[in-house]
């Protein structure tokens, strides 16, 4: 049971943290619960489909289908996260103002919800497919099924608890700062995912440059440990980053920072003009 619990929990950590961050980043936006839920449900359905066609996907592109699929969905998540940040740097003030007036931002926050629902969906999809396959293995093997399934349920509950904990931690930040904090977290999340995506592209044989490992901190913070896994999800920590991963990580942060600066409304020149 403990083995199943650990495997499942390890897989749901990433999705759990992301759901928590997304909920905090959309604080005060009306309808966010529905969007996040839709993301989770779509992700679960997608995960089951991916698990069902795992063999077919793996066989595509000369056996690199799984890696390319992972790289693709991660890249999609990176674009959506970056878009959210850029959008928030333009409209964050409106949302905050609307929240003060109505208690919730009914009109202005809806757009970014779609982007973040996709991010949630992708996170659930990626980790969920592995959980589904693992569960299938347990059921197919038929030994101690009930016991192992109990472990899985506790593992899943652990992931949900982690979401709640992340959210509770983030919303305790004073509301003046919360969007700044979540913007930084989302930028780091995106950079980490971008670095992960290029590694999958490397594993697929799509990219064969920059594979050289820059440093090895596996003896200090092993990625297989809980702390390493948390850092991996939150800031994209990798115990042995490749040259390419490091470059892409830094480039993603730089591009996000530049785009956010460009998108920021110039208050002096066009007061209250940033609508839409």
């Amino acid at each position, binding site marked *: 049971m403990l083995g199943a619990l650990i*495997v499942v929990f390890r897989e749901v950590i990433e999705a759990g943290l992301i759901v928590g961050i997304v909920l905090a980043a959309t604080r005060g936006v009306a309808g966010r619960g529905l969007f996040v839920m839709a993301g989770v449900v779509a992700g679960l359905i997608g995960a089951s489909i991916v698990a069902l066609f795992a063999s077919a996907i793996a*066989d595509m592109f000369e056996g*690199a289908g799984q890696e390319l699929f992972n790289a693709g969905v991660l890249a999609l998540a990176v674009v959506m996260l970056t878009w959210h940040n850029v959008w928030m740097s333009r409209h964050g003030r409106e949302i905050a103002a609307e929240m003060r007036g109505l208690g919730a931002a009914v009109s202005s926050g809806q757009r970014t919800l779609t982007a973040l629902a996709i991010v949630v969906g992708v996170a659930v999809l990626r980790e969920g497919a592995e959980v589904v396959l693992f569960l299938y293995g347990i059921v197919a093997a038929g030994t101690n099924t009930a016991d192992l399934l109990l472990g899985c349920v506790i593992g899943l509950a652990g992931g949900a608890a982690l979401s709640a904990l992340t959210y509770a931690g983030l919303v305790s930040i004073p509301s003046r700062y919360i969007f700044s904090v979540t913007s930084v977290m989302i930028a780091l999340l995106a950079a980490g995912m971008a670095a992960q995506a290029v590694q999958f592209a490397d*594993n697929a044989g799509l990219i064969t440059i920059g594979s050289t490992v820059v440093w090895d901190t596996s003896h200090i913070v092993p990625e297989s440990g809980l702390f390493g896994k948390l850092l991996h999800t939150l800031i994209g920590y*990798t115990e042995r980053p490749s040259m*390419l991963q490091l470059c892409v990580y830094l480039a993603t942060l730089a591009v996000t920072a530049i785009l956010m600066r460009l998108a920021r409304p110039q208050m002096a020149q066009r007061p209250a003009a940033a609508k839409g």
Partner: protein
Amino acid sequence: MRVSLFAIALLTLIGLQPATAQEFSITIKDHKFSETELKVPAGKRITLTVINDDATPEEFESHPLKVEKVIPGKSKAVVRFGPLKPGRYNFVGEFHESTAKGVVIAE
């Protein structure tokens, strides 16, 4: 021409050079790897075919090799890694970590 030579020199300098792949194979049976030690040449791209002879899925995972790949039951998958520095690189079948263990030795 001079520009491309310069570019290659620069890429080589910062470790961005491409490398050719060498092929290996390993089998999973009864949640164990057929070889617990796999010797590969250092400094080369490696293509490893992992054959899963079990009916249940397995996840070939190695943080040292920077590889994670789900292999459905009764099928095979290709994982690519390297070029490696000489040394030992542990890998596991994540779904059966207590029995499915092995190490890639690059030399």
